[in-house]
């Protein structure tokens, strides 16, 4: 991850001091800003409070969806330095695997998701071992970008050849919704949100506590150093890509019940996922979670004032500001 290392080392000394002094100041600030923004929307926003509550609930749940998609990406981007353009296509792929298992084998959606996880993990490791490892070990940046781009085209079009392009839907097992303060929250989306939290928690614990997690963090911080102390960097890369892909499988399974499945469905998320990954900080699982929720809220609450693409302009404006003023992201300092 040489480039990330440079980016960090290039940041000014004063910033480094601030970081050392108060590692949690910025995350707390972001949370505070979000809360203040919401309070202002309620009090001075001039919109019906019920509507604001709905957009906040929707935004939170949508944020969960975004976070779920971004967690795998942030791991791959953070540790391998690979801008994985195949991410969206792999998301589609997981959804279609789940679709196939529910319709052909009759498995319930969430059980199918559990089965899809090891499949996608294997696929991810295969991709990294077979296609990317040589390039990433060389520190080549354009190569992986193009390979994953090619992979994305390949996956999408193979899915097209197998399943056709008509929108398909996965039979749902838990229809219905819950009323929270007068706002609607569908069970499926709440399960997806819960899944995101669970994945984030498990992954954080695994990275902190297990020896594999230690190796991954070591490689992420300094791959050469890790190699010197006997870590098999190639193997760690493959495992990281595999774990990232496993996260994608969870995302696919939890999203499939409420999206129309076409081979390009996952692509919709790719761009936003990159925004979230940078916002949260490369490689930071908690950052992806917080970033997802922030972007989800900006998009839905923003849409009350700037409908349609207007709220997306807002999202990208936030992105550019973060890139310029804090390229390491909200949680980048924790690494």
């Amino acid at each position, binding site marked *: 991850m040489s480039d990330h290392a440079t980016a960090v080392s290039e940041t000014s000394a004063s910033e480094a001091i601030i970081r050392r002094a108060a590692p949690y100041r910025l995350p707390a600030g972001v949370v505070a800003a979000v809360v203040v923004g919401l309070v202002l929307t309620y009090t001075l926003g001039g919109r019906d409070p019920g*509507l604001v509550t709905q957009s906040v609930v929707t935004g939170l749940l949508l944020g969960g969806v975004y976070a779920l998609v971004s967690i795998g990406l942030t791991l791959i981007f953070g540790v391998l330095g690979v801008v994985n353009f195949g991410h969206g296509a792999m998301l589609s792929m997981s959804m279609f695997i789940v679709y196939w298992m529910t319709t052909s084998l009759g498995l319930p959606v969430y059980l199918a998701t559990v089965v899809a996880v090891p499949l996608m993990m294997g696929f991810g490791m295969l991709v990294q071992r077979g296609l990317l490892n040589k390039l990433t070990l060389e520190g080549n940046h354009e190569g992986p970008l193009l390979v994953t781009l090619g992979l994305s085209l390949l996956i999408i079009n193979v899915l097209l050849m197998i399943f*056709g392009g008509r929108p398909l839907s996965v039979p749902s097992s838990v229809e219905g919704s819950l009323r929270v303060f007068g706002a609607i929250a*569908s069970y499926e*989306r709440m399960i997806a949100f819960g899944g995101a939290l669970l994945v984030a928690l498990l992954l954080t614990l695994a990275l902190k506590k297990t020896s594999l997690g230690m190796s991954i963090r070591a490689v992420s911080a300094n791959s050469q150093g890790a190699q010197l102390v006997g870590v098999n960097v190639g193997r760690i890369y493959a495992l990281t890509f595999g774990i990232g892909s496993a996260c994608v499988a969870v995302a696919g399974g939890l999203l499939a019940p409420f999206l129309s499945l076409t081979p390009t469905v996952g692509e*919709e998320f790719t761009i936003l996922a990159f925004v979230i990954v940078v916002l949260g900080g490369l490689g930071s699982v908690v950052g992806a979670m917080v970033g997802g929720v922030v972007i989800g809220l900006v998009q839905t609450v923003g849409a009350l004032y700037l409908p349609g693409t207007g709220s997306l302009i807002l999202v990208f404006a936030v992105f550019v500001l973060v890139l310029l003023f804090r390229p390491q992201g909200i949680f980048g300092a924790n690494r």
Partner: protein
Amino acid sequence: MQKLMGVATAVLLTTTLVACSDDASGGRSGGNVDEVTIGALHPLTGSLAGVGTMMSNAAKMAVHDLNEDGGIECLDGAQLRLETGDSKGTASTGQSEAQRLIDNGAVALVGTYQSDVTQNVAAVAERSGVPLVIDVAVDDAILEQGYQNTFRIQPDATSMGTDGGQALFEIAQQNGQPIDRVSYIHLEGAFGQSVFDAFAAEAKSAGVEVSETTYSPTNFTDATTVVRQAAAKNPDVILVTGYYPDSLLIAQAVHQLNPEIDALYGIANGAFDNTSFPADAGNAATGVLSANYHFDATDERVQDIRQRFEEQYGQPMETAAVLTYQAAVVIEQALEDACTDAPAEVRDAIAAAKIEDPLLAFDGPIVFDETGQNKNATVIAMQVQNGQVEQVSPEQFKTSDIVYPVK
């Protein structure tokens, strides 16, 4: 060294270019014709591959049927040959594919589903003097360029907004539930905006109050807020113009929020009268109304075509594909009328054509006005009942009685 590399580059350049310039079997003959080529251009890959492939298949089936039927009698039973193209959903590929089809001898084109691709292909058609019969592509702007070679069978966005509005107000009146206020949810962009503007004008003259909510189809994965916004205005009816996935989400959100409305009503909606909508939306689909151009389900020929299509391709034939089929029929008729395969004369024959008994539920025969728009294209009202899309208005196309208000 550099020189050698340069020579290598030049050689490479020449071979690549020569390799891809294999001779096209073009050349339209004047006298004896035993085969006439028409081109069908649709998105066969990319995000619209599903519907594009279906439309391309419909073109194949139409050509097959027409040939079975004796080909073009006036040209001594000359057979039709179909050349298909893949726009990949992008305008520049659409253009190069259109040129390829024309270079390969196509005397008329059918396509292309997307408005931006159609704009490009229409320009190619115009400059080549080859007629383009649009099966599906909705933007008003396409026919506002003064092109002489572009014709459209389906209604444009503006007329659908107007006709859809009229149909709604009539239905409400007839069922004793006059409308005071509606909320209209539509996607951003030329299509959604034109339909909405036309509807709003219609509503104004009917004395109906309209509030507007827009959304962007990109990154649209949750409709709850949008629907909540629309419902907050206490409307009698919520109207929706959008594509399939977003309209599906909107219908589901309306079902969950369960506002006090008489109906959920789509105009030019990509989902509400699609055959897979009732199954995909489940309970949320029940009673949903849709004003859209639609195949004529009461017509036996249509039933036969649709049944054979489903047997052959394993999927139901949607309206878009019926329009492609219809476009092929229009071209065949024009070839018959013109009695030649010269594109210019085929164009004139299309401009003068009158196709009785269209496969679509239209006001009358297919007749093109001076801009190339089918004058009799219009929408009918449909409703999801018992997991089926039924035609409910007007009287002559009815397959079932309307339920209104829905709750």
